[in-house]
């Protein structure tokens, strides 16, 4: 086990994520600059005054990219917060209770795993109507099944353990055993899986934004900004280019950090 901060790849991941997290933290301060339109300064190329250039309404692309960090990263964290604990709890309950409850839960999970994720999220977001929260719900509802599988697999090895038998002898209910004694055991592998998943969640969230299902204009969101840059791709490629680079930075940062975190917390797994 090596410390996270000695791993060069983890440091690189952190270096990529830091400006984005700063942007997300400072986003509210940028909100005015991100929405301010200057029709006399439309489609300006990157310069000393506008580092990332300006978009079709003369808004500063740098300010919008920084302000957009809050919505894209916030959406990803919201999904993580919803889907991963739900999966962990369901898996722990399924593994502890056993018998028919386990059969039903695991079959539902298998079926949910087989349903195409992005398509379902898209249909759901279309049904709920566009919006940041609805997009988060749509991605979260399609993201939980792998966590159930993993948590149940962890539970199977623990449910015959002595301390579980002891808890049962003390009169703990099955649900209490599942939630209080078993679920925490799966926490570290849930975090590892989550950190590896975050890149994919960011991409899915940005994809929904690109399709117009995330935050609504004029609010800045990376996927939607890339979509808005499509019409000016030839004469002003920076409008789509820089927010896209921010997505790439987030994706790379989370992937690198996730790999490093897995190496640290779960050395059994082969690095690949």
């Amino acid at each position: 086990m090596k410390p996270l901060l000695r791993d060069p790849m983890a440091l690189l991941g952190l270096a990529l994520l830091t400006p984005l997290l700063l942007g997300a933290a400072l986003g509210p301060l940028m909100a005015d600059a991100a929405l301010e339109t200057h029709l006399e300064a439309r489609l300006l190329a990157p310069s000393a005054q506008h580092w990332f250039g300006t978009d079709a309404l003369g808004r500063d692309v740098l300010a919008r990219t920084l302000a957009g960090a809050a919505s894209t990263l916030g959406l990803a964290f919201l999904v993580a917060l919803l889907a991963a604990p739900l999966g962990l709890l369901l898996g722990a309950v399924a593994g502890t209770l056993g018998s028919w409850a386990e059969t039903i839960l695991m079959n539902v999970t298998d079926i949910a795993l087989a349903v195409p994720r992005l398509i379902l999220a898209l249909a759901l977001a279309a049904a709920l109507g566009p919006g940041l929260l609805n997009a988060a719900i749509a991605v979260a509802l399609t993201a939980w099944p792998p966590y159930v599988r993993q948590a149940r697999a962890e539970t199977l090895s623990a449910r015959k353990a002595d301390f579980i038998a002891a808890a049962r002898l003390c009169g703990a209910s099955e649900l209490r055993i599942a939630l209080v004694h078993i679920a925490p055991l799966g926490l570290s592998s849930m975090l590892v899986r989550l950190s590896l998943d975050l890149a994919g969640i960011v991409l899915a969230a940005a994809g929904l934004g690109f399709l117009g299902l995330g935050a609504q204009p004029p609010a800045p969101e990376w996927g939607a900004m890339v979509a808005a840059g499509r019409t000016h791709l030839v004469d002003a490629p920076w409008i789509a280019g820089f927010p896209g680079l921010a997505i790439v930075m987030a994706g790379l940062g989370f992937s690198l950090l996730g790999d490093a975190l897995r190496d640290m917390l779960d050395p059994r797994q082969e690095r690949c």
Partner: protein
Amino acid sequence: MRRVLTFPLTLLALLGCTFLFMKIAPIDPTLAVTGEKASEAARLAAAQTLGLDQPWPVQFARHLGRVMTGDLGVSTLSGQDVLSDLALAFPATIELALAATLIGFGIGLPLGVAGAYWRGRWPDHLARLVALLGHSVPVFWLGLMALYIFYAALGWMPGPGRISFYLEGLAPRISGFILLDSLLAGRLDIASDALAHLVLPALTLGLFTSALFARTSRALMLDALGQDFILTARAKGLSEGRVVFGHALRASAAPLATTLALALCSLLEGSVLTETVFSWPGLGSYMTGALMAADMAAILGGTILIGLVVAGLNLLADMMQRRLDPRTA
């Protein structure tokens, strides 16, 4: 046997989801029939003809019956049957997905095998870099940047779309696959134009497939190369080529078949974004177009079709796995 049962259950779940989405969508289906200014009585009558006054289970059973008989409703956007719309759009998506799979398999598999064989050397770093990029770069942005560089800036490639506009409709529509149709009609000019249009979207999608293949085949080969039977094969004097391709790769064949099916599934999903970027007239463009117009019948029809194909591919992968790896049978 259990898997065979999963297939209809998955379809049932999928139809349940689409039915639920239809119900929670804030779109009143009677409006499409009666128009905005209809009286309350006319709306109620329309609801009755549409069966909306029935309890939910009855409505769901009817929905099930309609879908089973191929009636996916009428698209409000195109005014056509959703099923015939899908039949028009699907070949374009298959064309793109197959091309991307070929590219992904052709690049990813050799990369993964080389990465595992020369572990820790430059082929390994390359394989891991490709896998990392496939994990972190959004497909829609990569497609746009490819269009900007190779079409707008360099002019090496044709622009978005499936075929140049002046050739549109010149090839007879036989199978719906433009490449095949134009070759059958003997129009090499159309075929080469369609092929040129296919290059950028297929390469964009193909990068993600090659990342998947590179990652999976590298992990599988690393595992296989460390097994005792490889030591035996080497000890009995087989050439390295035979050891790697005849023994280690053969042992990885079954999980690779599963990966292939998985790749096709993710390609169907990736096509939604890629087709939008490249204005490729396939299933993805159809669904995003329907999305903009709140055309629920078209969106759900596309969801059902993709879900059906994905579930079918999963089943196929499972059967292939049994075929290739007798231990799991």
